[in-house]
């Protein structure tokens, strides 16, 4: 790196703009011309280009998709998460509300079983009202206790049915709340499972890394031992060779004397 100075106007900003190709054509021409004569700037541009090349090697770790973070309620098939009992409750609620709106009316009298819906009076009721006004008699519904043998039972049944409908209407928000809290619980459990899986993967990686380190340490120790043993063998061999050489010398000298 060079520590010399160059007096080019706005030098630092120009170098950066030149590096990232954001210099206007005219200043670019000027700076190119300057680079031909200024080794300080030329070296610096080359050095910073090399830094940019190194920066390109920096890769962040892989990312698993964040799709699970999008709020569950915004998914199109959210009802798949609602349990069957909650769906049945919702269906009952719907029937109850429909029946209430339709003004369901069940009657059993001399004409038989009558089930009517709607807010208009049935024709038979109008007829009965007409008879009452003309003949001064009591309405058909109260004409004779024996004329409507199941009236009391039916009235009780109707009352019970209405009470149940009201009760199911009242309990509906609680059921819906229970369903949504159930979905919330499922989501939490899923998140916990994800976390646990990640932890296990991390621990597994750690264990594998430990095993690799142990194996490496053992390998180094073995290599040291082998090296040491070889050294000893080499020494023994050297001593042996030296002895033999000395014996040969002695023999040679003895033969020379003779």
């Amino acid at each position, binding site marked *: 790196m060079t520590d010399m100075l160059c007096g080019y106007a706005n030098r630092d900003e120009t170098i*950066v703009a030149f590096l990232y190709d*954001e210099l206007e054509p005219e200043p670019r021409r000027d700076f190119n011309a300057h680079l031909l004569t200024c080794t300080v700037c030329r070296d610096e541009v*080359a050095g910073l280009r090399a*830094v940019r090349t190194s920066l390109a*090697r920096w890769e*962040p770790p892989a*990312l698993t998709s964040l799709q699970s*973070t999008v709020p569950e309620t915004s998914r199109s098939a959210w009802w798949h998460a609602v349990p069957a009992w909650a769906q049945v409750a919702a269906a009952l609620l719907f029937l109850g509300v429909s029946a209430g709106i339709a003004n369901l009316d069940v009657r059993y009298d001399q004409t038989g079983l009558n089930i009517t819906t709607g807010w208009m009076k049935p024709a038979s009721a109008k007829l009965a009202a007409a008879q009452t006004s003309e003949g001064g008699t009591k309405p058909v519904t109260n004409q004779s206790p024996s004329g409507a043998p199941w009236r009391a039972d039916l009235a009780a049944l109707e009352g019970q049915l209405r009470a149940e409908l009201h009760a199911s209407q009242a309990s509906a928000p609680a059921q819906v709340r229970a369903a949504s809290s159930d979905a919330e619980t499922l989501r939490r459990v899923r998140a916990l499972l994800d976390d646990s899986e990640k932890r296990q993967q991390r621990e597994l990686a750690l264990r594998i890394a430990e095993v690799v380190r142990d194996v490496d340490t053992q390998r180094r120790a073995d290599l040291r031992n082998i090296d040491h043993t070889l050294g000893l063998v080499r020494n023994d061999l050297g001593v042996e060779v030296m002895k033999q050489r000395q014996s040969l010398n002695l023999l040679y000298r003895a033969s020379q004397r003779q």
Partner: protein
Amino acid sequence: MTWTDEELVAKSIRGDADSFNELVLRWERPIYALAYRTIGREEDARDVCQETFLRAFRALPGFRGQAKFSSWLYRIALNLCRDWIRRERRTPVVQPPEDVDLLELAAAAEPSESIEDLVARQDLSRVVERAMALLPEEQRTAIVLKEYHGLTFQEIADLVGCPLSTVKTRLYQGLTVLRRELAKNPRTKGTIL
């Protein structure tokens, strides 16, 4: 058919959740990379990325399209990174593990790449990461936005809220520090002049 970000935003505002999912798919990787390179911790970067999209989802009805959707996301992510750095009261920490993470290695290996090449590539990546961690937050952010996200000087100035010349100065100073640091390291000094 490929929708533009702005079209997907409009559809999301009208309640189409799939459109927002598409935006997440399109932008999660750049936002995560920005967070990771700014704060240097994998888990925290993931949290920042997640929080960015949650905030964007909540604030979507208020998004008026004055800026590009990506710039808006970048701003949310950068603010969260700044909050993280202030909360932790420290500069980003790069914490490469002492031992080689084999699972990570296996996942990162290119089919034709030898294990030596892979380790060398990762080593170089860590050297750069460590050098980046030495930079002050402003210089690091400028380099990350310019180098890895290709923003113009003007876009960076708008995002971080400073004059254009300041962005250039931060980039120059940051690159100069990196040059000095990389020249010291045995793994990179041969390539840095």
